């Protein structure tokens, strides 16, 4: 982990409320693993005061982040121009654990809810490199908010989409889609489920995985101050006591969590 002054290479609006930023951070790019995140100082002034955590979206020599403008920090970040510099601390945390390629037929199921898709593209790329069969489920409220479908098309074996309002793909929550997919796909695989999205969705997917006896890795989002394990602000309750989303996570085995 290092604190670097990174040069922004591009910062583009990709849909109604989502932006993609690429910045030059060679050390972080070299060290980053899927599921890890960075802490970005959105402004050089004291407003907002704290850094903001962003999942590492993709790593191609540079670091890409995918973010939604939800408050003052991300609003300021969205106004940054190519060539501007930002303080970036990373890579932080424990990311996803890839399936053992020694298992006879590993299969990964990636489930993304809304902007929770952010860390999962990098994961899918790493799975593809290892030739692991990957199924991707993307859920969002409505068609415009479905993210990264094209990115996944290049690397995943099967892609399914659901929208809460039915404007695109199956109608309903992505957990409902997950149920449906499981009924129609073969079960001879050793399955690992990777999921990131709203808390309720994570819980729902974790329950389905538990019933099926699938390993389920969830990426949690918590408000944090430091990101380096000292403020103890991002506590996650687990069966073995308090853990920190920043240092011990953000990815946890769902069976370890006290929901």
């Amino acid at each position, binding site marked *: *982990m*290092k*604190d670097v002054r990174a040069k922004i290479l591009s910062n583009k609006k990709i849909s109604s409320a989502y932006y993609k930023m690429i910045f030059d951070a060679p050390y972080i790019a070299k060290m980053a693993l899927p599921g890890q995140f960075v802490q970005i*100082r959105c402004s050089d002034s*004291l*407003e*907002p*005061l*704290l*850094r903001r955590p962003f999942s590492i979206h993709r790593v191609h020599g540079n670091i890409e982040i995918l973010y939604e403008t939800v408050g003052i920090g991300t609003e300021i970040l969205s106004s940054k121009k190519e060539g501007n510099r930002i*303080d970036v*601390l990373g890579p932080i945390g424990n990311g996803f654990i890839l399936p053992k390629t020694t298992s006879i037929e590993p299969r990964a199921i990636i489930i993304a809810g809304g902007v929770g898709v952010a860390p999962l593209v990098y994961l899918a790329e790493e799975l593809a490199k290892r030739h692991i069969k990957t199924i991707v489920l993307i859920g969002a409220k409505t068609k415009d908010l479905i993210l990264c479908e094209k990115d996944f098309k290049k690397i995943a074996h099967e892609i399914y989409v659901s929208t809460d309002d039915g404007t695109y793909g199956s109608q309903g929550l992505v957990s409902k889609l997950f149920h449906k997919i499981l009924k129609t796909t073969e079960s001879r695989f050793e399955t690992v489920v990777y999921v990131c999205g709203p808390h309720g969705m994570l819980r729902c997917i974790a329950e389905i995985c538990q019933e099926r006896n699938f390993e389920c890795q969830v990426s949690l989002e*918590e*408000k*944090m*101050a*430091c*990101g*380096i*394990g*000292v*403020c*103890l*602000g*991002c*506590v996650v309750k687990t069966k073995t*006591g*308090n853990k920190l989303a920043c240092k011990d996570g953000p990815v946890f085995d769902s069976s370890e969590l006290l929901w």
Partner: protein
Amino acid sequence: MGTMMNVKIGKIKLKNPVMAASGTFGYAREFEKLTNLKHIGAIITKTITLNPRVGNPMPRICETSGGMLNAIGLQNEGVDNFIKEKMPYLSKIGIPIIVSISGNNIDEFFILARRLDKIKNISGLELNISCPNIRGEGWSVKGGGLVAQDSKATYEVVKAVRKITGKTIITKLSPNVTDIIEIAKASESAGSDAVSLVNTFLGMAIDINTKKPKLGNITGGLSGPCIKPIALRMVYEVSKNVDIPVIGVGGIMNADDAVEFMLAGAVAVQVGTANFIDPGVCGKIAKGIEDYLKKHKIDRIRDLGLI
């Protein structure tokens, strides 16, 4: 850096007056790869208690204008774990280590001090009698308040710790009082070697959409640049009224802020919230103070004061 930046707090000699504040620097190892720890004057470790504490419910932090609220609730693994797991690393850093302690009653403070007194590499103890997130626990202080809100309770705690240890004692004071001078004096007369002020201000924030408090504990401690003017005023007032060193803390983000506290009467400063934003900030502030002294042709930091 030479000797121009040297300061002394009780028996502790610091290479420079910048200390990392308790609760914002963990047990130092977290910063190992992010900054040169030797550039910091002293490290005050996250408050420990006799027994482990799980802390408060989530959410525990919330950003505010120019600051942040926290309601961690002194989560820690207890003194035994601290000595076994944290001290070996802290001992190796080579700068003074001050251990922040808190207790539910005088006995707990006494037992903690007795245990830590035996450890050579601990330079001093900071008595955290002012954490606003553990109100109403244990103490019989009037109205369920904090020790640092009652001069008699403050006196008794400091006195008990003084009895058992010759190590430097720093008492961390609360700004949530009517007269902070009275509490500082109680601490001084009980034998404290220094006072650090201020701990966080009790505050709260509400989410207007959910209509719920933003913190699980409802209230929390406010820190950051927004509290600096009040902290500065308190440091100014207390330093005129006690003879022991005053350590200034509250919203210090850069060297200018630190110099301001020292001009107000502080012998040293603690940097807290700023560590969350820039893990290298303590060393930068120390360097900045030194640059200031050179620029203003001040030979020794202890000569720094208001005109």
